[in-house]
């Protein structure tokens, strides 16, 4: 090769060229796939919400969502109302599921912004459930989930997910053995809000005591578990002014 690959001019030109090529390629790919990815995310969100309220195709131990071909229909069939809550007021809004929790919590840092909280009201076999979306921090990255409550503020089902928790440890928050523990747990202790703690010392691995506001932690995922408990506490609390009006 005649070129002198050691020279500074060549190095700078090569670096510039490479940045342009790679940048263009990735930008092109990202923008051309954007619509498809957004559609997939919407489907996932609807599947997650339905999962939390118990509409899923689970068998013994797997996590199975309703198929994506029918998720749109199922969503409009089971979710009777979508509310946007500010303080204790609730306004119906059928685009509530498009509210971006991350953006809302960033906006809420400015003082005069009134945070909009989405809430989904579902009805399965005549039983109402109120599905609260939550979002928080795990060990490495964001964690989020959907918590389905009945009007007594007892958990009917949950779905958790994460962006990058350690595979085999923190990532187990989206496994059945962990999520199923939440079913039946109370988020209230009498009349005060307590949330659900992820505990390493509750001595109740079978999770028989449903009113202790605790579920059993996962070994090796202390930080993820703590983050999850903090997320439940913080985000459910914001809904309490409204949720309390349900519990007469």
């Amino acid at each position: 090769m005649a070129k002198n690959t050691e020279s500074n001019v060549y190095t700078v030109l090569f670096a510039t060229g490479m940045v342009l090529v790679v940048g263009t390629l990735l930008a092109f790919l990202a923008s051309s796939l954007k619509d498809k990815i957004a559609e997939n995310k919407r489907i996932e969100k609807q599947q997650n919400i339905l999962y939390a309220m118990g509409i899923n195709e689970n068998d013994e131990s797997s996590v199975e969502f309703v198929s994506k071909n029918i998720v749109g229909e199922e969503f409009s069939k089971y979710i009777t109302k979508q509310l946007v809550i500010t303080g204790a007021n609730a306004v119906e809004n059928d685009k509530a599921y498009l509210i971006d929790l991350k953006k809302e919590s960033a906006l809420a840092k400015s003082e005069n912004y009134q945070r909009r909280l989405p809430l989904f009201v579902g009805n399965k076999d005549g039983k109402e459930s109120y599905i609260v979306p939550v979002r928080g921090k795990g060990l490495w990255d964001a964690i989020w989930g959907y918590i389905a409550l009945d009007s007594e503020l007892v958990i009917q089902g949950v779905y958790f997910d994460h962006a990058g928790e350690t595979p085999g440890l923190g990532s187990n928050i989206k496994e059945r053995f962990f999520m199923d523990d939440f079913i039946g747990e109370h988020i209230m202790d009498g009349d005060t809000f307590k949330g659900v703690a992820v505990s390493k010392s509750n001595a109740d691995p079978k999770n028989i005591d449903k009113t202790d506001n605790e579920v059993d932690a996962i070994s090796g995922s202390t930080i993820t578990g703590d983050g999850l408990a903090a997320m439940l506490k913080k985000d459910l609390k914001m809904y309490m002014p409204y949720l309390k009006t349900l519990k007469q």
Partner: protein
Amino acid sequence: MGLLSKKDLKLITDPLADNNPITIQVLGICSALAITAELKASIVMSIAVLFVMGLGNLTISLMRNIIPPKIRIIVQLIVVATLVIIVDLVLKAFAYELSKTLSVFVGLIITNCIIMGRFEAFALANGPIRSFIDGVGNALGYAVILIIVGFFRELLGSGTLLGFKVLGDPIEKTGVYAFGYENNGFMLLAPMALITVGIIIWVQRSRNTSLIEDN
């Protein structure tokens, strides 16, 4: 293997045993510790690394004569990152479920030093086909160790394999748990992965004493 010459075949078999990237070259230790708590995660990571390393070695080898030596590490890093991000985007659009499984591995693949190590040590000095074979060979060597470690950590730590309760139910006290056996929770933590890798290194070097370095 009529397709491969003896020399090329060695590129595959060497990393599986006497030149293993983890136990001999001591590369890729961090991901071997991080994701071997479950067998399934080990297998998924192995497949992902196999793919990235084969293609990455091929790409770097094709570019080897035009890469400026002063910035070669940055160029290598960009090649890996670009490959991984392209795959991630395409999967998100066309195979969303699969991309959910793989997304947690993306960061671990990009920073895996076996990949950078093979680019630097092999692909920069060899032709594309041999580099591709070398990439595949080293990824397989990596996979073997990951799967062995994952097997023992999941079996002894959780009493399961690929999620199946092979030893019985620890809470209901069935299977071996009925005799008072307990899962060893320490196996799930990173230190035991390091000790497991250490035991593999020990076994390997006591079987083949030529691998022991002189002091």
